[in-house]
C-alpha cells in the first residue's frame, strides 16, 4: 500500500482514535502512518457488535416478560456467553444455565448474587433489575 491510499475514512468504531499502518513512501520505504480507519473494518466490527446488541435486546425482552432472568440480559450486555460467565464466576456451566431461568434466579442466595455481580462488574441491585 502506498502512503496516499492509506484509508482515512473516519471509522466510527475507532471512537476517534487512529491505528498505525505501514505504507510505502515516495522512495519505496515502508513507514508507519496513522490511519483514521477503513470502511471494511467498520462494517465487520459493527456487524459483530450488532449481533451482540441484538442478543442482549432479545434477552431483555424475554426477561421483561418473565421468560428469562435478568442474569441472562446482563450476561449478554457484558458481551459474555455461558462459557465465559462460568469461567469468570467460577460456577459450573450447568449452574449458570439454570440461573438463567427466572424462578431459579429469584431464589438465589445473596452470596451467589454477589458472585455474579462481581463477575459482571455490577452492583447486586443492578443485577436483579433491568434497565
Amino acid at each position, binding site marked *: 500500500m502506498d502512503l496516499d491510499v492509506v484509508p482515512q475514512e473516519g471509522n466510527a468504531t475507532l471512537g476517534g482514535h*487512529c491505528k498505525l499502518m505501514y505504507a510505502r513512501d515516495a522512495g519505496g520505504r515502508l513507514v508507519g502512518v496513522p490511519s483514521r480507519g477503513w470502511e*471494511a473494518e467498520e462494517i465487520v466490527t459493527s456487524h459483530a457488535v450488532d449481533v451482540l446488541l441484538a442478543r442482549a435486546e432479545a434477552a431483555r425482552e424475554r426477561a421483561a416478560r418473565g421468560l428469562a432472568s435478568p442474569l441472562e440480559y446482563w450476561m449478554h450486555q457484558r*458481551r459474555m456467553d455461558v462459557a465465559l460467565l462460568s469461567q469468570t464466576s467460577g460456577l459450573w456451566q450447568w449452574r449458570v444455565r439454570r440461573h438463567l431461568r427466572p424462578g431459579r434466579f429469584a431464589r438465589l442466595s445473596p452470596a451467589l448474587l454477589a458472585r455474579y455481580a462481581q463477575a459482571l462488574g455490577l452492583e447486586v441491585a443492578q443485577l436483579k433489575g433491568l434497565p
Partner: protein
Amino acid sequence: MNFQHQHAAHCESGVIANLLRHHGVPMSESLAFGLAGALSFAYLPFVKVSGLPLIAYRMPPKAIIKGMIGPLQARFRFETFSAPAAGERRLDELLGQGRLVGVQTSVFWLPYFPPDMRFHFNAHNLLVYGREGQDYLVSDPVFETPMRCPAPDLSRARFARGMLAPKGLLYYPESVGRKEITPEALRHAIRKAAGRMLAPLPIVGVRGMRTLAGRLARLPRDDAGSLDFVGHMVRMQEEIGTGGAGFRFVYAAFLQEAAQIAAMPQLMPLSDRLTAIGDDWRRLALAAARMVKGRDALDPPALARLLRAQADAEESFFRDLRAAVA
C-alpha cells in the same frame, strides 16, 4: 520516568519495541516482529472464539517477547499471580523501583478503549510507566498517545478469566546481553518464519489457508450463520491485533530493515512482493465486508477462490524468501 511512547500497529510488537528502546536497544516494532519470526497463519477450527473458529495471522501471544531472548541474549522475568491484590501490590512495587512494566490484559475492561472495540480478548499487551493516585499511567502502543487507567479497572483487566487468561501477567527485562542485531539472527528468524508458512500441516501456513478456503466454499449462501462466519474471518484478519494484511506490511518493513542491517539487498524486491500480497489480503477483506453489508450477494466460493490465490502467492513468496537467506 523518562519514557518515550511510540504508536504501533500491533500491541505485542509495539510493547516490546518500546520496552527495549527504553533499555537502550535500537528496536523498531517491525524489527521486533520479524526477529521473533512472528508472521504466521493458523486455522484452528477446534478453538472457538465466541462460537467461531480461531483464525490467526501471527504466532500466539508472548511469542514476540520470547523471540527477543535469543537474538539479544536477554533475560526476561515473567510473573503471574493467583490474587489480584498481590498482582497490584507487585506492580506498584516495580513502579516504585523505577521500572517500566509490561502487562497482559483483557481488552473488554479497559475503559479508554472505544466501546465498539471492547470484546473479551485476553491477550492484549501494554506498558505501565507510573502511577498517579488512583490512576496508572499506561502506554498502550495501539493508541497514538499515553493513556490513564484507574487502578480497579486495570486490575480487572489483568485478572479477567476465560481463554488466554492473563492471570495478572507482568514482565520486564532483567538484563540485555547484546544491543545490536546480528545478520545471523536475522537469517535464522527469516528461515523460521518461512519454514512455518510452508509447514506440511493442514492447519498452519499456506496449507491452513487452503483448509479454510475449503471450509469457506462449503458455507450455505442463504444462512445468517454464513454471514457471521465471513464477518468473523475478516475481523480476525483486519481488526483483531492488526490483522492479516497489516502483519504482511509489518513483515515487509522488517525485510527492508533486515536488508540494510545484514547487507542482503536481495530482500528488497521480496519486501515489495509481500507488500503487494498484503494489498491483495485487503482486497479480499473488502470483498467479504461488502457481502456482510449486503452490497454484494454472499458468494462463499468466490471468497474461497480469492483465499486460494493468496495461499498460492504466499507459497511461492516464502519459497523464494527461504532461498534468499539459504
